[in-house]
């Protein structure tokens, strides 16, 4: 379970630093030569860099089959000061390699997809010169993510954690001069960075606590000693794990810090797929799984984790029902699915969390990239329409599902892969999402009845909002001219979609009931509970999903939305409730009222009345007081500094001369 001496290490393990250095090479090549090489080459180099990183992960997978206990591969010492002794070592074990495989596999496919996507997007956004920058940032993200998952101590993990946050910031605001008012994208990036940094505050405190409790930040020094330290400091593990949870709610978009993720959809769609669905946002789940030993020592914290995850799963699913932006639906769905994973960790079902993390990476990346295919197609159609009619065609929002409709016939490949993604997200057997979600719901069934009900309710809503989305986008008739002109995307875009669809179909095999490959794989690194397949639970969740899809069909399928301006049928029946949900329960406004506004007022109070008025006033007042006491003083003060300075100069010159003579 713990790291062995490096002496007996299979040399295959030594390739692990390449997961960081291959993408770094990609950046260097693209940075230095990209301008001359052209777009295709830039995209190919970046994709190869991530693909290479995937191959390295496969090699590590192979090496671990013979040495499943794993190794720590040292690279360099970072710094030593006092009791802090930080080195950069790569932890290669069954848990980290699962993350590397998932990130690099999905990452490679998304990079390939982006070769085509960003070409069109860059033209559409009017600045093709940023094509190269995009791939540099994407490779940088892979580097940071690899540092995060391969870290052997909490500080390197934090380095990766902040690094992915930076890339997220840069890529959300990639079209930094676009969006509402030309600034909305940039502000979305800022919001993401600051909100997650609030969480990072918690993670930092957790790290400080760990350091002073264990005298080290190395995983190998901490996890084996949890029992002993917890016995000496009751309550400490609770503090550590709860502060850590704060970091998780930021990065993995859980209540109360989830608010940045929907806005993060301002980033180009490949970014939404890679960073804000498949990989970065799962970092919190990975962190808690990695720190399982700490959570096991703090059952109360586990409870909190469970509730945070379950409530987030339900809450975000409710909001997703009333959204019209195709990517916003998927964003809230991501928050909701991350809630499942977090809840799973709280339930002590870390394997189920990791399982769902991997399958979710497949199908959510699939859904986002497919939505990108649709958005591009509509944008293209809008431009063609504009040229055809010779006038400025109606500029519609290409992400609003009300502007779509009937795309099933126009974009058949996209339709079929989207359907696969939607069904697997809805938990329809035998697709991947069915098995992974079911494992979490089964764990809830074993542990806590209320959580079970909450998660099943969220599953119902999941199937419903995906049914609604499919029906609004692909069925009925085209509700805008652009939708009627839409065409299927090029193979460079559809082929990665097909591969992801296949992975979403067969992904359940990773931890298929009875085989439990992932479980047996992870038990070398973390404690696992043998999960059992519960037929009643499976039947309940499956039938709930089917009923939800049926209801969605009754509402949106039987009588499709007629016009892009038609009211949502739910809005007609629910009225104000629907509006409130559509406005995301006004949580952004609430936070602004409670936190942002008051901070701005306070800062302004400090900056003006306090600093320039009061504090500076005292200083200047002392001066004025002096000058007003009499004209003699005024005179003295007028010439004061200059004469004073002169006398100092004279004095120093004399001293220097004296010194020179003496020496």
């Amino acid at each position, binding site marked *: 379970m713990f790291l062995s001496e490096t002496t007996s290490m299979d040399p295959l393990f030594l390739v692990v630093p390449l997961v960081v250095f291959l993408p770094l090479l990609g950046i260097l090549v693209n940075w230095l030569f990209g301008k001359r090489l052209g777009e295709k080459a830039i995209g190919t180099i970046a994709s190869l860099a991530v693909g290479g990183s995937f191959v390295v992960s496969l090699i590590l997978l192979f090496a671990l089959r013979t040495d499943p206990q794993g190794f720590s591969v040292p690279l360099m010492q970072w710094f030593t000061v006092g009791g802090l002794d930080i080195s950069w070592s790569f932890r290669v074990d069954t848990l980290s390699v699962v993350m590397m495989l998932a990130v690099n596999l999905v990452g490679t496919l998304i990079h390939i997809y982006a070769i085509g996507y960003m070409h069109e997007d860059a033209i559409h956004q009017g600045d093709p010169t940023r094509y190269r920058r995009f791939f540099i940032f994407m490779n940088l993200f892979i580097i940071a993510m690899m540092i995060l998952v391969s870290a052997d101590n909490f500080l390197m993990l934090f380095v990766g954690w902040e690094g992915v946050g930076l890339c997220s910031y840069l890529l959300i605001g990639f079209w930094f001069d676009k969006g509402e008012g030309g600034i909305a994208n940039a502000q979305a990036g800022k919001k993401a960075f600051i909100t997650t940094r609030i969480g990072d505050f918690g993670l930092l405190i957790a*790290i400080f606590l760990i350091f*002073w409790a264990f005298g080290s930040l190395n995983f190998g020094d901490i996890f084996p000693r949890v029992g002993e330290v917890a016995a000496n400091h009751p309550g400490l593990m609770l503090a550590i794990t709860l502060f850590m949870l704060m970091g998780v709610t930021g990065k993995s978009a859980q209540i109360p810090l989830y608010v940045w993720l929907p806005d993060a959809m301002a980033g180009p769609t490949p970014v939404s797929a890679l960073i804000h669905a498949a990989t970065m946002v799962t970092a919190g789940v990975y962190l808690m799984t990695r720190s399982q030993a700490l959570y096991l020592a703090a059952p109360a914290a586990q409870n909190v984790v469970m509730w945070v995850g379950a409530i987030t799963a339900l809450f975000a699913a409710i909001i997703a029902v009333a959204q019209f932006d195709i990517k916003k639906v998927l964003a809230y769905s991501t928050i909701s699915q991350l809630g499942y994973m977090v809840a799973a960790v709280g339930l002590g079902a870390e394997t189920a969390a990791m399982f769902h993390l991997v399958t979710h990476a497949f199908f959510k990346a699939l859904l986002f990239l497919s939505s990108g295919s649709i958005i591009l197609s509509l944008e293209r159609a809008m431009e063609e329409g504009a040229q055809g009619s010779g006038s400025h065609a109606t500029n519609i929002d290409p992400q609003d599902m009300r502007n779509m409709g009937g795309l099933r016939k126009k974009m058949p490949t996209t339709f079929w892969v989207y359907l696969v993604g939607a069904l697997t997200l809805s938990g329809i057997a035998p697709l991947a999402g069915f098995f992974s979600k079911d494992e979490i719901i089964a764990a809830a069934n074993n542990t806590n009845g209320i959580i079970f009900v909450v998660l099943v309710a969220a599953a119902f809503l999941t199937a419903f909002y995906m049914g609604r989305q499919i029906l609004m986008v692909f069925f009925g008739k085209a509700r805008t001219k652009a939708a009627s002109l839409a065409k299927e995307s090029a193979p460079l875009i559809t082929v990665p979609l097909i591969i992801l669809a296949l992975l979403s179909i067969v992904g359940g095999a990773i931890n298929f009931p009875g085989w439990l490959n992932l479980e047996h794989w992870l038990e070398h690194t973390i404690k696992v509970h043998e999960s059992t397949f519960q037929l009643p639970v499976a039947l309940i969740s499956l039938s709930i999903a089917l009923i939800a899809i049926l209801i969605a069909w009754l509402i949106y399928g039987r009588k499709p939305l007629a016009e892009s301006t038609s009211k949502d049928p739910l809005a007609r029946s629910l009225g104000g409730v629907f509006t409130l949900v559509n406005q995301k329960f006004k949580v952004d406004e609430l936070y602004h009222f409670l936190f942002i506004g008051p901070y701005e007022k306070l800062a302004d109070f400090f900056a003006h009345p306090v600093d320039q008025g009061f504090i500076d006033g005292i200083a200047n007042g002392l001066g004025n007081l002096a000058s007003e006491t009499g004209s003699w003083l005024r005179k003295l003060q007028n010439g004061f500094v200059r004469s004073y300075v002169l006398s100092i100069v004279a004095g120093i010159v004399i001293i220097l001369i004296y010194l020179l003579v003496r020496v």
Partner: protein
Amino acid sequence: MELVILTFFPLVGVLILVLLAPQQKNAMRYVALITSLLTFGLSLWVLSKFNPAGGINMAIELPWLRLANVPVEFYLGIDGISILMVLLTTFLIPIAILSSWNAIQEQVKGFLIFFLILETGMLGVFLALDLVLFYVFWELTLIPMYFLIGIWGGERRIYASIKFVLFTMSGSLLMLLAILFLGINAGSFSQPTLMANRQLFAGAEMLLFIAFAAAFAIKVPIFPLHTWLPDAHVEAPTSGSIVLAALMLKMGAYGFLRFNLALFPEASVRAAPVMAILAIIGILYGASVAFMQKDVKKLVAYSSVAHLGFVMLGIFALNQEGVAGGILQMVNHGISTGALFLMVGMIYERTHTREFSKFGGLWKVIPVYSGLMIVVTLSSAGLPGLNGFVGEFSILIGAFGSKVLGSPWFAGVATTGVVLAAVYLLKMIEKMFLGPVTNEANLSLKDLSARELATIIPLVVVIFWIGIYPQPFFNLINPAVEQLLQLVQSAAMVLH
């Protein structure tokens, strides 16, 4: 002897400058630049001979004069606390001179002479081990900076320069009294001798601590003694701001280490919680006020109050992580804030404004400038992989477990400063570089010239170097801090 050569070498340049005719502006600039580069070379020579574990290195001790019948010595020495300050000084002065190349066109000769005298003064401050000598150098730095702001500054330069001088002088007068008191009571002005004979002035430790702290706190500056800083920065020319923020503020923090901690360890232990609270107020208050600024340079100036708050918190954590982290953070602040002022100066030279409302969307127009500025800003925000992170982390983790502070609350509250830093720094990035270009005049801006790149690239290299491999810096710092803290720890033992 090495240290004497190093300290006074800039005056060689002054002598040459005196001989040049006023219209030979370029020649004068080259003389100053080469002098400062050679000084930097000399400091590397000193570094090559430096032994971190050897305490005070290359000491030179000469009898000088007598004050109240107590011998004053010309006493220079270098150790792990001062060496990085010396290197920072010699590294930044050439950059500052290069940054003034086009900006300063009036009275170039005087400007450069003051600059080189300032360098000698600062090197003297960091190297002097005799208290009177230290005081002489300390005051010596004041004069050239007064003129740099007062002659080559902006519109309100007279107000700002007088304010700067009056603030600093009022603090240092108290320090002068304390120095005289020490010398008369202990019979020596030598810092090492005084350290060894602390019992001679133990009764007045707290008063002496306060007197020295008054001088240093204004310089750092510690809240609420900071209001001279934004005025001085806004009015100072770019090169003056670089030196002021990157180097002169460090004189205050350095003074705390060299004199307050070393001479008055018991008072330091007792004062630590108060100092830590002031430091934390500085962090949170500085960040909040920075956030509200409409002028880039003012924002950077207030960010210094916040950053130096971290440094002071580390110093008064009084443990290895905190103090060593604090010293590294002094270097980091010098590099990052120096770079920020440098780059604010570059945009000011082009647009003659520093108002956020006049910028926006610059990334599209001047990508090289914008990219570098974003890197520097992120380093100031403490992003891992860049220099600010290692120092800040070390300070916070030190303060968190500090036995002297005795509570994790100090560091806990200070850590919120990490969030606030992101708030004001990302606002700066957004207002300057993101969004559309709102000011049409900016569409024709030119990106960085070769000379400008030559000033900023070395700083960016160091930003990455310290971020990725800070160990060589800690190797210089660690042994000296260990020695210093042994003293403090035994003092703390006595107290408890």
